C-alpha cells in the first residue's frame, strides 16, 4: 500500500502528542495547585 508509513507516522505522532500534552497538563496543574495550597508532597 503506497505511503503506508506516512499514515502510520501521522497516527502515532498525533496520538503521542495528544497523550503527552494531557499528561503534562495534569503534572503542571497538580504542581501549581500544590503550591497554591502550600502542600509539598511532590
Amino acid at each position, binding site marked *: 500500500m503506497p505511503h*503506508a508509513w506516512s*499514515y*502510520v507516522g501521522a497516527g*502515532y505522532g498525533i496520538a503521542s502528542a*495528544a497523550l503527552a500534552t494531557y499528561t503534562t497538563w*495534569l503534572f503542571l496543574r497538580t504542581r501549581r495547585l500544590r503550591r497554591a495550597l502550600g502542600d509539598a508532597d511532590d
Partner: protein
Amino acid sequence: MSVLRRYWFGASVVVALGITALFALWLSPPDAEQGDVVRLLYLHVPTIWIAFLGFFVTAVASVLWLVPRTRRTEWDLLAGASAEVGVVFTGITLVVGSIWGRPTWGTYWVWDARLTSTAILFFLYLGYLALRRTGSTAEERGKRCAIAALIAFADVPIVHLSVTWWQTLHQSGTVFNPNNNVQIHGSMAFTLVWAVAAFTLFYVYLVMRRLQLAELEEGLEERELELAIAERQRVEQMVGV
C-alpha cells in the same frame, strides 16, 4: 500511594508503552491485505477499549454516588476523572481510525454506524464534562452528573454492537464477534493483547493523577470559599463599627 511508588508505577507505564511501540512498529509483521497500515490498529483498538473502560468506571462510580448508603464525594470525583480520560482516548480513537480509513477505505470519514455512534459517544461525554463545570452545590452537581453519566453510557453497547446490528462499512469485531471467531493470531495477537494491557496500566495511572488533581481542586475551592466568608465577615464588622 506514596510518591516513590507512584514514580515506579509511572516508569512501568512508560516501559510498557515503549515495548508496545517496539512490537507495533517493528517486530510484528505487516498484514497480508492491509500491509503496514495495520500497525495503526495496535493503537486504535486499545484506545477505544480504554474509552469503554473509562466510561464503565464512570457509570459504576455514578451509581455508587446515587445510592444513599454508598454516597461519598470520592465516587463523584472518580466518575469525573475517568470520564475525562475516556474522552481523551475516544478523541484519539476517532482521529487514528480516520487516518487508518484513508488508505484502507479511501476516505477519512463516512457516516457509518460505528463511526457515527462513536462520534456521538465523544460529544455525549464532552457534554458530561461541561455539565461538571456548571455552578451549583456539590450535591446538586453530583446528582445531575451521575444521571447524565448513566444516560451517556447507554451509547457504549450501541457502539460495540453497531457492527452486528447494521452491516455498514466498518468491519465486524476481530476478537469479539457473534461467531466467536478470533481473526488475529501469533505475534499480531500478542502485540494487540500487550498493547491493551499497557494502555490499561496507562489509564489507571492517568485516572490516579486526575483524581489527585480533582481533590486539590476541591481543596482550593474550599479555601477560596473560606477566604470569601472571612472577607465578608471583616467587611460586615467594619460597616457595623
